[in-house]
């Protein structure tokens, strides 16, 4: 059986397909690129890939994705504005809820813990621009590899419970969220995001005060962070201290002008003919990536090699992950690790035994419980929502 597979692999080497059109993210290439990258150690963080220092934008090296929950000190960091919070007085800090409500709130951190039941869930936090550097033609923005995401257990209170206590008035439309960060110039819009009232009242949206059982690192949003599981991280407002309920749609810069994607299910457009209509980015698209392990880094003929990776989507949950050794002509099922919840990423594994030295190109493909799967080619002007099939080059020595 192994011999047969090996022969198939040899034949596959020359195969071409749609995959060749996309510049697939090769972790080996990523590792080479990372070798040239600068690393930096920020407070409460381990050495991370430095994109910018002011404001801090730091990427998680892929090896940390061998763990199901990303350690807090290795979790990626992404801030937009130059003036970020570096000090919080936990006694005087207040989360205010106001606007189109009957009972405005000003909640201390103690009140949040004491007056509302704690809720925990595991969820992937993924930057809209994760993997942007793999788009071709290249686009402006943080040139992230695959490390602008992480998976954590978030503990806090339900947003809907807070909104319930504030008693929204009839006619409430949108809810806005702002943290302690500020723009460096009056002309630069402060970072404010919005959810519809319906979305804000979804049972799984949280205001988290813990991440993996610990207070959030300052750079990940201490003391409170909005958790919108299944949606891209742009909505997960850090150092959240202001919730405003509006009786009309929110038209602030960070919803109306930024973080928008072409209005089609693939979030695709042609570089030469941009989509006429855009909408705010929202739920994450299904995707899977390889996570390099010692097994794939030191593959030897005759020894079993375990491919491993993670798959995620916008909250339907992962149904299956498949592997192809022939550029997508045939697929074989990978095994899935235990499910940590529909918003968590899901680890997959696939073992095979190469009988001789050589080079293999392997593709992984995830499908979610709604039957959605990955793109074979994709581009949009801002480099968002990347979910193109990825390949890994394996060298067997």
């Amino acid at each position, binding site marked *: 059986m192994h011999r047969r597979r090996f022969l198939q692999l040899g034949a596959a080497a020359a195969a071409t397909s749609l995959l060749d059109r996309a510049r697939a993210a090769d972790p080996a290439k990523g590792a080479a690129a990372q070798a040239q990258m600068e690393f930096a150690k920020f407070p409460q963080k381990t050495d991370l890939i430095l994109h*910018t220092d002011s404001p801090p934008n730091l990427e998680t090296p892929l090896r940390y994705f061998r763990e199901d929950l990303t350690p807090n000190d290795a979790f990626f960091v992404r801030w937009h504005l130059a003036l970020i919070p570096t000090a919080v007085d936990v006694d005087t800090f207040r989360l205010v809820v106001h606007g189109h409500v009957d009972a405005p709130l000003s909640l201390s951190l103690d009140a949040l813990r004491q007056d509302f039941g704690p809720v925990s869930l595991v969820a992937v936090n993924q930057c809209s621009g994760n993997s942007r550097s793999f788009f071709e033609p290249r686009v402006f923005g943080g040139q992230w590899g695959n490390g602008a995401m992480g998976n954590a257990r978030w503990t806090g209170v339900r947003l809907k419970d807070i909104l319930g206590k504030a008693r929204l008035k009839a006619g409430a439309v949108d809810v806005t969220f702002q943290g302690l960060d500020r723009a460096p110039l009056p002309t630069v819009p402060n970072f404010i995001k919005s959810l519809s009232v319906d979305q804000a009242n979804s049972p799984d949206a949280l205001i988290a005060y813990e991440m993996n059982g610990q207070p959030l690192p300052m750079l990940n949003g201490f003391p409170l962070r909005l958790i919108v599981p299944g949606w891209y991280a742009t909505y997960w407002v850090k150092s959240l201290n202001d919730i405003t309920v509006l009786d009309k749609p929110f038209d602030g810069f960070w919803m109306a002008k930024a973080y928008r994607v072409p209005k089609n299910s693939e979030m695709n457009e042609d570089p030469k003919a941009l989509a006429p209509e855009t909408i705010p980015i929202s739920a994450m698209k299904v995707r899977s990536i390889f996570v390099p392990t010692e097994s794939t880094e030191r593959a030897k003929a005759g020894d079993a090699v375990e491919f491993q990776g993670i798959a995620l989507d916008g909250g339907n949950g992962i149904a299956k992950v498949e592997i192809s050794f022939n550029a997508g002509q045939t697929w074989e099922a990978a095994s899935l690790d235990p499910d940590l919840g529909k918003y968590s990423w899901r680890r997959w594994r696939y073992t095979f035994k190469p009988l001789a030295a050589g080079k293999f190109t392997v593709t992984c493909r995830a499908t979610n419980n709604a039957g959605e799967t990955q793109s074979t080619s994709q581009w949009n002007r801002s480099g968002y929502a990347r979910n193109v099939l990825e390949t890994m080059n394996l060298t067997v020595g």
Partner: protein
Amino acid sequence: MTATQCILASIAAASLTLAITRTRAQPAGGTGPSGNSVRSITLPSIAFEIPEGPGREPFIARCVACHTSRYVFNQPAFSKDTWTAEVQKMRKTFGAPVGDEQVDDIVAYLMKVRGK
């Protein structure tokens, strides 16, 4: 005071605020003015040598006030049209304090360091 001077003054004020914040910051878990209740960090300053080239001075004065030059040096190479559009986006969308007369110099610098 011209509009540009006014904006530069506000950048200076903002930078000063940031500097004060950084100076006041204590090590994580340290104590602050109100006892043990302040949690704080001190952000590192990570040196970056901005290469020489025509337009370097306006680039530093007008762009790096708000964001590190790493934003530029991390980008792939782009065409002159693309860089010009990006400078205009920074001016018009984010209110960058770049006067009409500085656009050409800044674009020339961007083309030198990340042009194609």
